[in-house]
């Protein structure tokens, strides 16, 4: 069974305890943070376990890459201090259970991963995906399993992820283009954190799009729009790809508006927080995020993740901002029509 590569000496020498001090949902000073974190390292109970909203941000706040969030998830399960209602945990564990059904296209060495999200099949169409569109995988057998970070079920990840990696390799895939941000995060953050070897290259779809746009540079008509970027939870696990947002935007004439809830201070879509914590906390997160978008004068809100789209896109539209997925934004820039609409 894979084990978390957690180095407690790094935490011992840590002065800032940013993982907890910077948490957007816990109001801890450095001393309190140090105390509670030590409890977690020792395997003791701490209110942190049940207060955690699973926004993933502490993974980004830790300067040592010591995986504080993954440790929290492990401890939640060990101590049975669950982040989420039991019934929802059960639902998700059942929902994504592999069933031996391998749904694949004409898979080549380079393939698209639709994860477990059918609508990604519709997004990945048009000129930008022409060369690779026929080569794809989808379904529970290829599911990245990162979602169980929200459900205190690291055991499920440890059990299923190695098999998923094997399933992908057995298809002969050398480069997997991850259309879902979370999949890329799984192969580049979660898997290495557990010493799970990933024999293929996982490419973020941002990078893929950026390269494709450079290829079709002559087709680009600058959009000249101001956009708020909705930075989702899993980007916290892979902050190194954030620059692609700026790179793509520069190429297609989009301004990434500076706002309070972007980059390291981003707010997640709130859908999980609603389920885990209830109406008041969840809607507050969403309201602050949307108010911020309105305040900074956004014409568009660019989504990275389809799971953020569901809870937020309609509300974004109601506030007079056009929601658009990053793939659709790139498609728009080369004269194609968006696929995903409210």
């Amino acid at each position, binding site marked *: 069974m894979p084990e978390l590569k957690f180095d407690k000496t790094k935490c011992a020498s840590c002065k800032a305890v940013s993982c907890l001090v910077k948490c957007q949902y816990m109001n801890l000073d450095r001393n309190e943070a140090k105390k509670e974190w030590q409890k977690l390292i020792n395997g003791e109970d701490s209110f942190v376990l049940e207060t955690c909203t699973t926004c993933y941000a502490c993974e980004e706040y830790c300067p040592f890459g010591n995986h504080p969030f993954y440790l929290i998830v492990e401890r939640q399960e060990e101590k049975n201090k669950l982040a989420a209602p*039991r019934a929802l945990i059960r*639902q998700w564990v059942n929902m994504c259970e592999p069933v031996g059904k391998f749904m694949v296209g004409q898979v080549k060495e380079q393939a698209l991963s639709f994860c477990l999200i059918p609508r990604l099949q519709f997004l990945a169409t048009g000129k930008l995906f022409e060369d690779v569109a026929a080569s794809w995988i989808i379904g529970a057998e290829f599911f990245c399993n990162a979602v169980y970070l929200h459900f205190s079920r690291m055991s499920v990840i440890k059990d299923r992820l190695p098999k998923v990696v094997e399933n992908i390799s057995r298809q002969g895939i050398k480069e997997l283009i991850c259309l879902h941000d979370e999949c890329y995060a799984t192969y580049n953050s979660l898997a290495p954190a557990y010493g799970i070897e990933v024999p293929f290259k996982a490419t973020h779809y941002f990078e893929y799009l950026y390269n494709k746009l450079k290829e079709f540079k002559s087709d680009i008509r600058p959009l000249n729009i101001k956009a708020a970027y909705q930075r989702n939870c899993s980007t916290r696990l892979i902050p190194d790809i954030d620059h692609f947002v700026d790179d793509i935007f520069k190429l297609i004439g989009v301004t990434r508006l500076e706002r309070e809830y972007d980059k390291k201070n981003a707010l997640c879509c709130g859908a999980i927080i*609603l389920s*885990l914590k209830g109406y008041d906390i969840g809607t507050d997160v969403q309201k602050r995020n949307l108010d911020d978008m309105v305040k900074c004068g956004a014409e568009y809100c660019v989504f990275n993740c389809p799971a953020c789209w569901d809870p937020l896109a309609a509300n974004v539209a109601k506030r007079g901002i056009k929601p658009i997925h990053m793939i659709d934004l790139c498609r728009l820039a080369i004269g194609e029509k968006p696929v995903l609409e409210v």
Partner: protein
Amino acid sequence: MGEVYETLVQIVGKNYVSNHQEERYFYARDPGLMAPHEPDYVVMPKTTEEVQKIIRLANDTKTPVVPKGAGLALTGLVIPLKGGIVVDMKRMDRIVEVNEGARYVIVEGGVTHGVLKAYLQKHYPHLRHSVPESPPISTVVGNVVIHGQGRLTQQYGFHSDMVSGLEVVLPTGEICKIGSCSVSPYWFSKGPPMPDLSGLFLGWLGTTGIITKMSLKLYPQKKLKDVEVFVTDREDLVPDIVFKITHTEMIEDMGIWSQPRPRMFADNYHLNIFFTGDTEEELEFRRKMVWHALQEYIDSKDGGFMQLPPEMKPTFLDNPQKSMSAFADLRKGGGFEYSGPIIPMELYPSFARKAQELGNKYRVVQNASGRVIQQGHCMMFSFAFTFNRANSEEMERCRKALHEAAEFGLEKGAVLWKPTLYEQKMMLRRMDQNTINLMKKIKQLLDPNGIMNPGNWEVE
């Protein structure tokens, strides 16, 4: 025999009577598990007067009469146990009148739920009636007569509670007005402030007469609607969850369900909570109240609201739910039947467990669901089992499962909804003797020749 046929032809016209093998075969059966019993004739009257003539003929010739809507109760209630004349009400399909201000609609006996829903949406978009989950071809009157339930039952009760007047042809042939319409041109009440005679006809499964017109209450139709699904892994918490939600008085409808497949639903209990509003603000307020009511369950991890994928939401909001009919083909066999005990909420946990037990014991695919009635005064719990119609052994196992479900239900204190013949007998065996005597008196008074759907509600 010949005389009956010829008279029926005179009453309704040759095209609307049949004694052919084809009609006898088809009308002898329903989609459920009951054994077939063929009628001698099937007749389709157009007017109340034609119905009256048919009943008079039946009285004169002592021929059984079975009124039929769409026959979708699934419990064999329109199968003519003793042959005779099946009166298929479908041609009495007029929507007679809508009184907007008083919010009621008068329909003839064969008007379907689907047509009424579409009619109101088109002509009176701010009014609605309570739509059940049965397919839209089910008739308003047929559904009321069996005390059906639907989208507005959580707020306003059984569909029979929503009646505000009747026109009935008695088994002895008199056309009788029931309710305010017996005195006034308005059909706003089925009884009060006078003696409530509607109880002589509602729930009697056609044994006390044929309802040719019915006035049904209408309710406000709001512009927006939404649904939340609360999930718990503990069935024993469901009664309290329902109590808390209904206390808010914020919701439209609540359905409770559990099923082993698809896997994402296995081993959990789900509450579909429907609410409506004319504005986003109203909708959001109701949503907030419901969430707040269940915050303690979220905090204790005993339950939570699931994220409904947008592609799933229309299925939940669909009313009637087309997907519910599709349960019938789960075994690639086109059949299901359910026993629907009406129970106080506190019995839900034991019934939910029993449904699983029966599914395992009889190796049948089960779906346990229910609808909250009138703010949780009671609920309809459904033990539904699906079967392959080409597999008689599987059908027999389903019968046994339903039988055991009914026995269990009665033992626990349930009263069985739209009971099959044997369920009626089970209930009569438990019933207070004076109550039985009263029912017998009423039947003898109204139907001295015993022609109306004989076999049903019959005491040996």
